[in-house]
């Protein structure tokens, strides 16, 4: 049983304190890959929030509805989850292209890329596997807790991505030493941003 305050704590904890990009390093490929352009970052963030909510619901149902009753959850969850996510992304893409062309264009090529975005698989796994998400909460989430948790994770992803993109656009015109120009400087900037997120951790006492 979870009270409302526990759910709120879960949301804030997943979004800010345990921010998936800056304090747990999940999905860094996309973080560094697309963060040099504000427009693509917005598209990617929206697509991630959208797909993650659907994917983690689907994998939760697949795990508790099928894998666990059949007793194969322990060793089939990796292939099962990745297939569920891949198939779901494909269906979402087909549906959007037919019924909502505007949204489809906004998300563009990021939809298929999300299949290999670690964040989706990580959130799906953490909702059902013990000990991966280290907070003062039971690990086996109910469907509702799972939704709140995923919302927190994906909003945290978007928040960190947008703030870092803004930082990087400014960094392009900043005078940095020649050896550090480009990727090295981006990493150092991300490091400084991540110091800020550590501060948030002590703020909520988690």
């Amino acid at each position: 049983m979870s009270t409302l305050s526990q759910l709120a704590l879960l949301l804030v904890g997943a979004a800010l304190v345990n921010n998936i990009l800056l304090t747990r390093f999940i999905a860094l490929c996309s973080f560094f890959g697309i963060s040099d352009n504000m427009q693509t970052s917005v598209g990617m963030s929206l697509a991630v929030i959208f797909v993650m909510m659907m994917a983690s619901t689907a994998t939760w149902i697949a795990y508790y509805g099928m894998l666990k009753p059949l007793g194969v959850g322990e060793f089939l969850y990796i292939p099962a989850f990745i297939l569920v996510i891949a198939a779901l992304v494909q269906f979402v893409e087909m549906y959007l292209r037919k019924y909502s062309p505007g949204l489809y264009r906004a998300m563009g090529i990021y939809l298929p890329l999300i299949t290999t975005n670690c964040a989706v698989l990580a959130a799906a796994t953490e909702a059902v596997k013990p000990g991966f998400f280290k907070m003062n909460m039971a690990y086996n989430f109910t469907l509702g807790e799972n939704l709140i948790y995923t919302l927190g994770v994906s909003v945290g992803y978007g928040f960190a991505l947008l703030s870092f993109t803004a930082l990087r656009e400014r960094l392009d015109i900043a005078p940095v030493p020649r050896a550090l120009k480009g990727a090295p400087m981006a990493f150092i900037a991300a490091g400084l941003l991540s110091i800020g997120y550590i501060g948030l951790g002590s703020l909520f006492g988690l």
Partner: protein
Amino acid sequence: MKEFFKVLRNGLSLENPLTVLMIGLCSTLAVSTKFEGSLFMGIAVIFVLVMSNVLISAIRKFTPDEVRIPIFIVVIASFVTIVDLVLKGYFPSVYSFLGVWIPLIVVNCIVLGRAEAYAYHNGVVHSIADGIGMGLGYTIIIAGLAAFRELFGSGKLSFLGNTLVNFGAGYRGPNILLLFPGAFILFGLVIAGSHALNRRTARKEAV
């Protein structure tokens, strides 16, 4: 045979997945707080990379082009499951340290990337070389980063319960090395160094 070593060396330096291609970064930064854990992570990635390269390259002639990505993913996921269960059974402490990063090898861009870019177009023997080279390139960077962070961050280096190096109780290391920002900043410097090195090699070869 000469070709074999050329492919192998490519992964180590010129096409190093981490510092040059910049893929598979997530696990590198997250896991590299402990030397022991990251060494096992490297071994796990080498195993998955070599085995999936071999299998994908062996079946490349009759893999339909349209569904190749799902096939790759299922192949990779099977080998990751083997690693997952072996680590859980024989090295529980390493398993709990690596946590979610073991299943995440499935979506590690290095493994899928090499399957798509190399194993799908080349023979089995060369794919083995590519897998070993890329895997070693990954392992060296991640283990080196972890050794540095653990040694100077906490003052001692341990491996499977044995302490290899100990600076003594009086050592106060910079704590930031063990925290998340330390990983970002240190890795930024590593990339800067390796780019400078590659630039120098390129200049030398041009002369």
